[in-house]
């Protein structure tokens, strides 16, 4: 048992850091560092650079064109990217639909879809939730009726992240309305340019636009776009969620968040002293750091057991729950740190190159929007209550 990197791992870490420093455009790095909004082109430029290096789909095995990283390499890669202020990799293609296609798709589908995901030339989005089907996903009603060699899709999807930038959407659709809820669902790939698709923005509490409602009005989708067997889409859906579980703890991002919080607590004053010297506040940060360390070592234990050919054990089930709570706690304490200067609402400042004059400290305007926005982490990907239900059933057998 050894915490230290092997010489090979250290060499790999140096290689990753050198690559990120040489290839992450400075303007994108600045935006991430200063909490500015990123646009589609920012993500694409960075992801295409990673794609050329073969690292964009860093979780994929070699036989599907991934780099075949060891678990330790995954950990190193994720941490260094975060430390160097690289944007998060958009997961919809790389971590969600890609693995579904290489696991359940046919050869034609693999040939058609995988390379554009590896190279980031196509932007994917997800069509899972519906207005009437949130936590109870299997009750979804968007229907796909077969007519010849096409499905005709009608219905709507919601909480669709970044669909306004997407080229393709993967959807869960109902193909057999008479079957039991889970048994009549299929997994369908749909070109966003198909006639009949409308994307309507949903503006969030922080004033930002990152999610949409997507409407399907007699949308014609070739039967060739069905992944896996008809009415067996729930298998793909479950696989995708399990696959997602490991990368959802967001430890590297939270480490960065804690460091930013400490910087703010050093800059803020409290009775004439830096806030970080306030014992009560310092202990809140300490407690947060300890929670984050526990999460990190839980993830490391899981990675280690995978490296030895084992499956991640029950320890990973709690990662999403705790990881999301920690992300929220960081924003919570950051709000506490800036105090009343979190109040001025200056959304223009969230864009790079804004001429708007900041009010108060330069970091203050983004603190409240981030606090409000981060409430999503305990809701998306299956709310934490749903996660606990899954753990209770699958792990504890209750």
């Amino acid at each position, binding site marked *: 048992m050894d915490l230290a990197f092997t010489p090979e791992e250290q060499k790999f870490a140096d290689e990753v850091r050198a690559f990120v420093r040489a290839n992450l455009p400075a303007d994108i790095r600045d935006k991430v560092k200063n909490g500015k909004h990123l646009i589609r082109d920012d993500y694409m430029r960075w992801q295409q650079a990673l794609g050329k290096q073969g690292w964009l789909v860093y979780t994929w095995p070699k036989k599907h064109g991934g780099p075949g990283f060891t678990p330790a390499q995954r950990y190193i890669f994720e941490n260094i990217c975060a430390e160097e202020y690289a944007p998060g990799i958009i997961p919809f293609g790389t971590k969600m639909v890609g693995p579904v296609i290489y696991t359940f798709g046919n050869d034609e589908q693999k040939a058609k879809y995988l390379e554009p995901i590896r190279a980031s030339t196509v932007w994917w989005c997800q069509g899972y939730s519906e207005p009437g089907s949130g936590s109870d996903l299997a009750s979804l009603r968007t229907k796909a009726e077969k007519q010849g060699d096409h499905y005709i899709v009608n219905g709507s999807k919601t909480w669709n992240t970044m669909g306004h930038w997407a080229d393709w959407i993967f959807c869960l659709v109902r193909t057999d309305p008479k079957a039991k809820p889970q048994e009549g669902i299929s997994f369908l790939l749909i070109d966003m340019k198909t006639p009949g698709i409308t994307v309507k923005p949903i503006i969030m509490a922080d004033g930002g636009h990152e999610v949409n409602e997507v409407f399907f009005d007699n949308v014609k989708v070739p039967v060739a776009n069905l992944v896996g067997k008809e009415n067996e889409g729930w298998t793909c859906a479950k696989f995708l969620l399990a696959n997602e579980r490991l990368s959802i703890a967001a430890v590297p991002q939270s480490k960065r968040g804690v460091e930013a919080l400490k910087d703010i607590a050093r800059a803020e004053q409290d009775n004439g002293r830096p806030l970080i010297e306030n*014992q009560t506040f310092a*202990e809140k940060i300490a407690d947060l750091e300890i929670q984050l360390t526990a999460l990190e070592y839980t993830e490391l234990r899981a990675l280690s057991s995978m490296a030895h050919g084992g499956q991640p054990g029950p320890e990973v089930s709690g990662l999403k729950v705790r990881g999301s709570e920690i992300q929220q706690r960081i924003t919570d304490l950051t709000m506490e740190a800036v105090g009343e200067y979190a109040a001025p609402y200056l959304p223009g400042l969230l864009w790079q190159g804004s001429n708007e004059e900041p009010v108060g400290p330069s970091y203050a305007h983004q603190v409240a929007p981030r606090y409000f926005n981060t409430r999503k982490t305990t809701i998306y990907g299956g709310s934490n209550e749903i996660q606990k239900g899954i753990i*209770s059933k699958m792990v504890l057998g209750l």
Partner: protein
Amino acid sequence: MDLSLSDEQKQLQDAAERFVRDKYTFENRRKIAATEKGWLTENWAQMAELGWLGMAFSEEDGGYGGGPIETMIVMEQFGKGLVLEPFLPTVVLGGGMIAKAGSKAQKESLLAPMIEGKKQFAFAWLERQSRYNLADVSLKATKEGNGWSLSGHKGVVYNAPSADHIIVLARTSGSAREEKGLTLFVVDAKAKGITRRDYPTQDALRASELTFDKVSVGADAVLGKVDDAFGVVEDAVDHAIVALCAEATGCMDAINAATLEYIKTRKQFGVPIGKFQVLQHRMVDCFTNAQEARSMTLMASLKIDDKDSVVRRKAASGAKVQIGKSGKFCGQSAVQMHGGMGVTDELSVSHYFKRLTMIDLMFGNQQHHLTRYSNLAMAA
């Protein structure tokens, strides 16, 4: 980077698991706790034979070249069985301090027989006013010819009734709470001038209040350097904390397993109570807490011998905060979910709960270590 156990470590884990299964069924433990000294000579002899008393010490010191990971493995299983033999005071604390600060002669006369199972220790540091401050020591040692004379009081000294030697933290110079001026003495437990009041603890261990009235010891009783014991003590206590964390992890696994079993079988309103969502989520929280405790224990076991003292101390305190928090959550939840049965002596649950509660108090509770961690993080 590799966090998996080696083959030897897996064998150690199996052996410790087997020991607990064979020797520490709940009924057996009850019998052991009721004996006069509160532990069994035959069990101690078996631990010596299995090499556990020497596993964490270097081969130079007569040990088997293991370290904190080996201690973690064994302590975790001890936690599952609520093992009563005095491994922590004798091996982790006593043995640890002798290995770290002892002379060649002391290692030969104390450590070697300890590894063979022939000597036990107790560590007397706490005083009535000390709370968790290791430097708040007023028991005085004054020069007396070539040797020393010790006078004062020590409290809640675990294993003092069985120990062959008491390792006493005494003030040889400086003022109250000063880190400089502390010295460790290895004192024969039967030395003239020591009075003991023995008692059982809440969790069925044995401890004593000790009064030292002009207890004379030779110059060779000094462990390490005169006036300079604080670093040795702090380091030994941090190692003990990490070992306790491993024990607590084992307790949490056991208490969670018992609770899960109970809510699957106990029926109310016509269904097993584990069908109720509010209990399901609480049970999940218990498991998550135990996983976090295990992760922090592993982290601390890996870092407790780090070169950087800030890293070592933060590791121990961080783990102790987690164990305090998780232990309380799992313990209190287990009792609550067991309902009235949880507060009886009859089930094991209350016994695990008592041990977890006492572990939080030992060497600084959750709040104490949160403050220590926070101060260390600030200083770094």
